[in-house]
Protein backbone atom coordinates (compact mmCIF):
# COMPACT_ATOMS: atom_id res chain seq x y z
CA UNK A 1 0.00 0.00 0.00
CA UNK A 2 1.12 3.54 -0.69
CA UNK A 3 1.64 6.10 1.97
CA UNK A 4 -0.91 8.79 2.65
CA UNK A 5 -0.70 11.62 0.16
CA UNK A 6 0.57 14.11 2.75
CA UNK A 7 3.58 11.91 3.43
CA UNK A 8 4.13 11.49 -0.31
CA UNK A 9 4.14 15.26 -0.79
CA UNK A 10 6.54 15.64 2.15
CA UNK A 11 8.95 13.11 0.62
CA UNK A 12 8.98 14.94 -2.72
CA UNK A 13 9.30 18.29 -0.93
CA UNK A 14 12.18 16.86 1.07
CA UNK A 15 14.00 15.92 -2.13
CA UNK A 16 13.41 19.41 -3.53
CA UNK A 17 14.87 21.05 -0.41
CA UNK A 18 17.73 18.56 -0.35
CA UNK A 19 18.42 19.40 -4.01
CA UNK A 20 18.57 23.11 -3.25
CA UNK A 21 20.76 22.50 -0.23
CA UNK A 22 23.22 20.29 -2.07
CA UNK A 23 23.38 22.58 -5.11
CA UNK A 24 24.09 25.47 -2.76
CA UNK A 25 26.71 23.78 -0.62
CA UNK A 26 28.58 22.05 -3.45
CA UNK A 27 28.15 24.98 -5.87
CA UNK A 28 26.55 22.77 -8.50
CA UNK A 29 25.47 25.02 -11.36
CA UNK A 30 22.12 23.22 -11.78
CA UNK A 31 18.71 24.38 -10.56
CA UNK A 32 17.95 22.82 -7.17
CA UNK A 33 14.81 21.16 -8.48
CA UNK A 34 16.83 19.26 -11.08
CA UNK A 35 19.36 18.16 -8.47
CA UNK A 36 16.37 16.99 -6.41
CA UNK A 37 15.01 15.07 -9.37
CA UNK A 38 18.35 13.35 -9.96
CA UNK A 39 18.57 12.45 -6.26
CA UNK A 40 15.04 11.04 -6.30
CA UNK A 41 15.86 9.06 -9.43
CA UNK A 42 19.01 7.62 -7.85
CA UNK A 43 17.06 6.68 -4.71
CA UNK A 44 14.49 4.86 -6.85
CA UNK A 45 17.10 3.00 -8.90
CA UNK A 46 19.11 1.94 -5.87
CA UNK A 47 15.94 0.87 -4.07
CA UNK A 48 16.33 3.23 -1.11
CA UNK A 49 12.87 4.52 -2.00
CA UNK A 50 10.02 2.39 -3.26
CA UNK A 51 8.09 3.69 -6.26
CA UNK A 52 4.78 3.05 -4.49
CA UNK A 53 5.76 5.49 -1.74
CA UNK A 54 5.51 8.48 -4.03
CA UNK A 55 3.83 7.23 -7.18
CA UNK A 56 0.33 8.50 -6.47
CA UNK A 57 1.28 12.11 -5.79
CA UNK A 58 3.92 12.20 -8.53
CA UNK A 59 1.51 10.91 -11.16
CA UNK A 60 -1.19 13.29 -9.96
CA UNK A 61 1.20 16.21 -10.26
CA UNK A 62 2.34 15.28 -13.75
CA UNK A 63 -1.23 14.69 -14.88
CA UNK A 64 -2.17 18.23 -13.92
CA UNK A 65 1.06 19.82 -15.07
CA UNK A 66 -0.89 21.94 -17.54
CA UNK A 67 -2.43 23.94 -14.69
CA UNK A 68 0.99 25.24 -13.71
CA UNK A 69 1.71 26.65 -17.18
CA UNK A 70 -1.45 28.73 -17.34
CA UNK A 71 -0.48 31.50 -14.85
CA UNK A 72 2.69 32.54 -16.73
CA UNK A 73 0.70 32.78 -19.98
CA UNK A 74 -1.99 34.88 -18.30
CA UNK A 75 0.62 37.17 -16.71
CA UNK A 76 2.22 37.65 -20.10
CA UNK A 77 -1.04 38.85 -21.61
CA UNK A 78 -1.68 41.21 -18.71
CA UNK A 79 1.64 42.88 -19.51
CA UNK A 80 1.61 45.74 -21.90
CA UNK A 81 4.35 45.97 -24.48
CA UNK A 82 3.88 42.46 -25.78
CA UNK A 83 4.82 43.60 -29.27
CA UNK A 84 8.30 44.54 -28.04
CA UNK A 85 9.09 40.88 -27.53
CA UNK A 86 7.38 39.42 -30.55
CA UNK A 87 9.05 40.91 -33.54
CA UNK A 88 8.68 38.97 -36.74
CA UNK A 89 12.27 37.77 -36.64
CA UNK A 90 11.75 36.23 -33.19
CA UNK A 91 8.90 34.21 -34.65
CA UNK A 92 11.07 33.14 -37.59
CA UNK A 93 13.85 32.05 -35.26
CA UNK A 94 11.39 30.09 -33.11
CA UNK A 95 9.82 28.30 -36.07
CA UNK A 96 12.99 27.56 -38.04
CA UNK A 97 15.05 26.46 -35.04
CA UNK A 98 12.38 24.07 -33.77
CA UNK A 99 12.25 22.46 -37.22
CA UNK A 100 16.05 22.25 -37.15
CA UNK A 101 16.15 20.56 -33.75
CA UNK A 102 13.39 18.14 -34.74
CA UNK A 103 15.02 17.08 -38.00
CA UNK A 104 18.48 17.12 -36.39
CA UNK A 105 17.33 14.62 -33.79
CA UNK A 106 15.61 12.40 -36.35
CA UNK A 107 18.60 12.36 -38.70
CA UNK A 108 21.10 11.63 -35.96
CA UNK A 109 18.96 8.80 -34.54
CA UNK A 110 18.47 7.29 -38.02
CA UNK A 111 22.15 7.67 -38.77
CA UNK A 112 22.96 5.72 -35.62
CA UNK A 113 20.50 3.00 -36.56
CA UNK A 114 22.06 2.71 -40.03
CA UNK A 115 25.54 2.44 -38.56
CA UNK A 116 24.40 -0.29 -36.23
CA UNK A 117 22.68 -2.23 -39.00
CA UNK A 118 25.82 -2.09 -41.14
CA UNK A 119 27.88 -3.42 -38.23
CA UNK A 120 25.58 -6.40 -37.90
CA UNK A 121 25.95 -7.42 -41.54
Amino acid at each position, binding site marked *: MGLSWILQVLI*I*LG*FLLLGYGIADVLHI*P*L*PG*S*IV*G*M*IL*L*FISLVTGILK*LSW*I*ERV*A*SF*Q*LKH*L*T*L*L*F*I*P*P*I*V*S*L*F*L*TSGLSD*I*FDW*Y*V*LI*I*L*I*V*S*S*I*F*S*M*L*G*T*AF*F*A*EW*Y*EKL*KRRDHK
Partner: protein
Amino acid sequence: MTQITGEVFFCVIITIIVYLFCVHLHLKFRKGWLNPLFTASFLLIMVMLAFHVQKPAYEEGSIIFNHLLKLSVVSLAVPLYKQWTFLKKNYKKILTGVFGGTVVGTLSVIGMAQLFHLNQQLLASLIPKSVTLPIAITISNDLGGLSSITVCFVIISSLVPLTIGPKLFKYLRIRSKGARGLAMGLSAQMLGANRSLHWGEEEGAMGSIAMITSALFFSAIMPFLPLLLKI
Protein backbone atom coordinates in the same frame (compact mmCIF):
# COMPACT_ATOMS: atom_id res chain seq x y z
CA MET B 1 -3.72 45.24 2.53
CA THR B 2 -6.70 42.95 3.01
CA GLN B 3 -7.95 43.94 -0.41
CA ILE B 4 -4.68 42.88 -2.05
CA THR B 5 -4.63 39.53 -0.26
CA GLY B 6 -8.23 39.02 -1.29
CA GLU B 7 -7.34 39.71 -4.89
CA VAL B 8 -4.42 37.28 -4.77
CA PHE B 9 -6.62 34.61 -3.23
CA PHE B 10 -9.25 35.23 -5.91
CA CYS B 11 -6.61 34.75 -8.64
CA VAL B 12 -5.46 31.40 -7.26
CA ILE B 13 -8.96 30.01 -6.80
CA ILE B 14 -10.29 31.23 -10.14
CA THR B 15 -7.26 29.78 -11.95
CA ILE B 16 -7.93 26.34 -10.49
CA ILE B 17 -11.66 26.51 -11.16
CA VAL B 18 -11.23 27.61 -14.79
CA TYR B 19 -8.61 24.92 -15.32
CA LEU B 20 -10.83 22.15 -13.94
CA PHE B 21 -13.74 23.40 -16.05
CA CYS B 22 -11.60 23.33 -19.20
CA VAL B 23 -10.26 19.84 -18.42
CA HIS B 24 -13.85 18.69 -18.10
CA LEU B 25 -14.70 20.33 -21.42
CA HIS B 26 -11.72 18.66 -23.09
CA LEU B 27 -12.66 15.21 -21.76
CA LYS B 28 -16.26 15.65 -22.82
CA PHE B 29 -15.73 16.73 -26.43
CA ARG B 30 -12.26 15.26 -27.05
CA LYS B 31 -11.19 17.87 -29.57
CA GLY B 32 -7.50 18.69 -29.97
CA TRP B 33 -8.04 22.44 -30.06
CA LEU B 34 -9.88 22.27 -26.72
CA ASN B 35 -6.54 21.66 -25.00
CA PRO B 36 -6.96 23.17 -21.48
CA LEU B 37 -3.69 25.05 -21.90
CA PHE B 38 -5.28 27.25 -24.56
CA THR B 39 -8.90 27.35 -23.44
CA ALA B 40 -8.14 27.98 -19.77
CA SER B 41 -5.56 30.66 -20.56
CA PHE B 42 -7.98 32.40 -22.89
CA LEU B 43 -10.88 32.26 -20.43
CA LEU B 44 -8.69 33.45 -17.55
CA ILE B 45 -7.38 36.40 -19.53
CA MET B 46 -10.98 37.35 -20.25
CA VAL B 47 -11.90 37.01 -16.55
CA MET B 48 -8.90 39.06 -15.42
CA LEU B 49 -9.67 41.81 -17.91
CA ALA B 50 -13.33 41.80 -16.89
CA PHE B 51 -12.48 42.15 -13.19
CA HIS B 52 -9.67 44.65 -13.86
CA VAL B 53 -7.13 42.52 -12.04
CA GLN B 54 -3.70 44.12 -12.33
CA LYS B 55 -0.66 42.13 -13.28
CA PRO B 56 1.18 42.44 -9.91
CA ALA B 57 -1.76 40.90 -8.06
CA TYR B 58 -2.01 38.02 -10.48
CA GLU B 59 1.74 37.43 -10.41
CA GLU B 60 1.72 37.33 -6.65
CA GLY B 61 -1.01 34.72 -6.85
CA SER B 62 0.94 32.65 -9.32
CA ILE B 63 3.92 32.31 -6.98
CA ILE B 64 2.22 29.29 -5.45
CA PHE B 65 2.02 27.65 -8.88
CA ASN B 66 5.67 28.40 -9.38
CA HIS B 67 6.53 26.48 -6.23
CA LEU B 68 4.34 23.59 -7.30
CA LEU B 69 6.20 23.56 -10.61
CA LYS B 70 9.49 22.97 -8.79
CA LEU B 71 7.93 19.99 -7.04
CA SER B 72 6.77 18.66 -10.41
CA VAL B 73 10.29 18.82 -11.78
CA VAL B 74 11.35 16.52 -8.92
CA SER B 75 8.44 14.23 -9.79
CA LEU B 76 9.74 13.81 -13.34
CA ALA B 77 12.07 11.23 -11.80
CA VAL B 78 9.11 8.82 -11.68
CA PRO B 79 8.47 8.45 -15.46
CA LEU B 80 12.22 8.33 -16.00
CA TYR B 81 12.52 5.49 -13.48
CA LYS B 82 9.61 3.59 -15.04
CA GLN B 83 11.41 3.57 -18.40
CA TRP B 84 14.82 2.83 -16.95
CA THR B 85 15.24 -0.64 -18.52
CA PHE B 86 14.16 0.65 -21.91
CA LEU B 87 16.53 3.57 -21.51
CA LYS B 88 19.48 1.35 -20.60
CA LYS B 89 18.89 -0.82 -23.66
CA ASN B 90 18.77 2.08 -26.11
CA TYR B 91 20.99 4.64 -24.46
CA LYS B 92 23.41 5.02 -27.37
CA LYS B 93 20.66 5.79 -29.86
CA ILE B 94 18.99 8.17 -27.43
CA LEU B 95 22.21 10.02 -26.63
CA THR B 96 23.14 10.32 -30.31
CA GLY B 97 19.73 11.72 -31.23
CA VAL B 98 19.39 14.03 -28.25
CA PHE B 99 22.93 15.34 -28.55
CA GLY B 100 22.65 15.88 -32.30
CA GLY B 101 19.28 17.55 -32.08
CA THR B 102 20.23 19.86 -29.24
CA VAL B 103 23.44 20.96 -30.94
CA VAL B 104 21.74 21.55 -34.32
CA GLY B 105 18.87 23.42 -32.65
CA THR B 106 21.07 25.63 -30.48
CA LEU B 107 23.46 26.40 -33.34
CA SER B 108 20.53 27.40 -35.54
CA VAL B 109 19.28 29.80 -32.84
CA ILE B 110 22.73 31.34 -32.40
CA GLY B 111 23.29 31.55 -36.15
CA MET B 112 19.98 33.27 -36.82
CA ALA B 113 20.50 35.57 -33.84
CA GLN B 114 23.74 36.74 -35.47
CA LEU B 115 21.91 37.21 -38.75
CA PHE B 116 19.19 39.39 -37.21
CA HIS B 117 21.57 41.15 -34.77
CA LEU B 118 19.61 40.05 -31.71
CA ASN B 119 20.62 41.47 -28.36
CA GLN B 120 22.23 39.20 -25.82
CA GLN B 121 19.27 39.20 -23.44
CA LEU B 122 16.75 38.08 -26.04
CA LEU B 123 19.13 35.41 -27.27
CA ALA B 124 19.55 34.14 -23.71
CA SER B 125 15.80 33.78 -23.31
CA LEU B 126 15.51 32.07 -26.72
CA ILE B 127 18.07 29.38 -26.01
CA PRO B 128 16.26 27.38 -23.29
CA LYS B 129 13.10 27.29 -25.40
CA SER B 130 13.54 23.71 -26.54
CA VAL B 131 13.50 22.33 -23.00
CA THR B 132 10.39 20.92 -21.43
CA LEU B 133 8.33 23.68 -19.79
CA PRO B 134 8.78 23.10 -16.05
CA ILE B 135 12.54 22.96 -16.46
CA ALA B 136 12.67 25.83 -18.96
CA ILE B 137 10.83 28.04 -16.48
CA THR B 138 13.16 27.01 -13.68
CA ILE B 139 16.22 27.75 -15.79
CA SER B 140 14.79 31.09 -16.89
CA ASN B 141 13.92 31.98 -13.29
CA ASP B 142 17.37 31.07 -12.08
CA LEU B 143 18.95 33.19 -14.80
CA GLY B 144 16.72 36.10 -13.83
CA GLY B 145 14.75 35.92 -17.06
CA LEU B 146 11.05 36.48 -17.57
CA SER B 147 9.31 33.15 -17.11
CA SER B 148 6.19 34.29 -18.96
CA ILE B 149 8.21 35.02 -22.11
CA THR B 150 9.94 31.68 -21.84
CA VAL B 151 6.56 29.94 -21.66
CA CYS B 152 5.41 31.61 -24.83
CA PHE B 153 8.63 30.72 -26.65
CA VAL B 154 8.39 27.11 -25.52
CA ILE B 155 4.76 26.80 -26.56
CA ILE B 156 5.22 28.40 -29.98
CA SER B 157 8.25 26.27 -30.72
CA SER B 158 6.47 23.10 -29.68
CA LEU B 159 3.41 23.83 -31.81
CA VAL B 160 5.51 23.87 -34.98
CA PRO B 161 6.74 20.25 -34.88
CA LEU B 162 3.35 19.17 -33.60
CA THR B 163 1.52 20.52 -36.63
CA ILE B 164 3.98 19.85 -39.46
CA GLY B 165 6.20 17.17 -37.90
CA PRO B 166 4.20 14.06 -38.86
CA LYS B 167 3.82 15.25 -42.47
CA LEU B 168 7.46 16.22 -42.70
CA PHE B 169 8.51 12.76 -41.48
CA LYS B 170 6.38 11.17 -44.16
CA TYR B 171 7.77 13.48 -46.82
CA LEU B 172 11.39 12.90 -45.78
CA ARG B 173 10.76 9.15 -45.37
CA ILE B 174 11.78 9.05 -41.71
CA ARG B 175 10.14 5.81 -40.68
CA SER B 176 12.24 4.65 -37.75
CA LYS B 177 10.12 4.49 -34.60
CA GLY B 178 12.97 5.62 -32.39
CA ALA B 179 13.89 8.57 -34.59
CA ARG B 180 10.33 9.83 -34.84
CA GLY B 181 9.66 9.51 -31.11
CA LEU B 182 12.93 11.14 -30.11
CA ALA B 183 12.48 13.99 -32.55
CA MET B 184 8.95 14.75 -31.38
CA GLY B 185 9.86 14.53 -27.70
CA LEU B 186 12.89 16.77 -28.12
CA SER B 187 11.30 19.46 -30.24
CA ALA B 188 7.72 19.50 -28.93
CA GLN B 189 8.34 18.16 -25.39
CA MET B 190 5.24 17.15 -23.49
CA LEU B 191 2.86 17.79 -26.34
CA GLY B 192 5.19 15.92 -28.67
CA ALA B 193 5.67 13.00 -26.31
CA ASN B 194 1.92 12.80 -26.09
CA ARG B 195 1.61 12.89 -29.89
CA SER B 196 4.25 10.18 -30.36
CA LEU B 197 2.27 7.92 -28.01
CA HIS B 198 -0.39 7.84 -30.74
CA TRP B 199 2.13 6.19 -33.07
CA GLY B 200 2.88 3.42 -30.61
CA GLU B 201 4.47 2.44 -27.34
CA GLU B 202 8.08 2.60 -28.49
CA GLU B 203 7.61 6.04 -30.02
CA GLY B 204 5.86 7.24 -26.88
CA ALA B 205 8.59 5.96 -24.57
CA MET B 206 11.24 7.51 -26.81
CA GLY B 207 9.31 10.77 -26.80
CA SER B 208 9.21 11.17 -23.04
CA ILE B 209 12.79 9.99 -22.65
CA ALA B 210 13.95 12.56 -25.22
CA MET B 211 12.01 15.23 -23.37
CA ILE B 212 13.62 14.48 -20.01
CA THR B 213 17.16 13.72 -21.19
CA SER B 214 17.32 16.81 -23.39
CA ALA B 215 16.20 18.90 -20.43
CA LEU B 216 18.86 17.35 -18.22
CA PHE B 217 21.47 17.77 -20.91
CA PHE B 218 20.45 21.39 -21.39
CA SER B 219 20.51 22.28 -17.73
CA ALA B 220 23.94 20.73 -17.53
CA ILE B 221 25.34 22.88 -20.35
CA MET B 222 23.33 25.98 -19.41
CA PRO B 223 25.96 27.39 -16.99
CA PHE B 224 28.58 27.24 -19.75
CA LEU B 225 26.49 28.88 -22.45
CA PRO B 226 27.39 32.47 -21.52
CA LEU B 227 31.04 31.57 -22.06
CA LEU B 228 30.20 30.00 -25.41
CA LEU B 229 28.23 33.02 -26.56
CA LYS B 230 31.12 35.38 -25.90
CA ILE B 231 33.37 33.67 -28.42
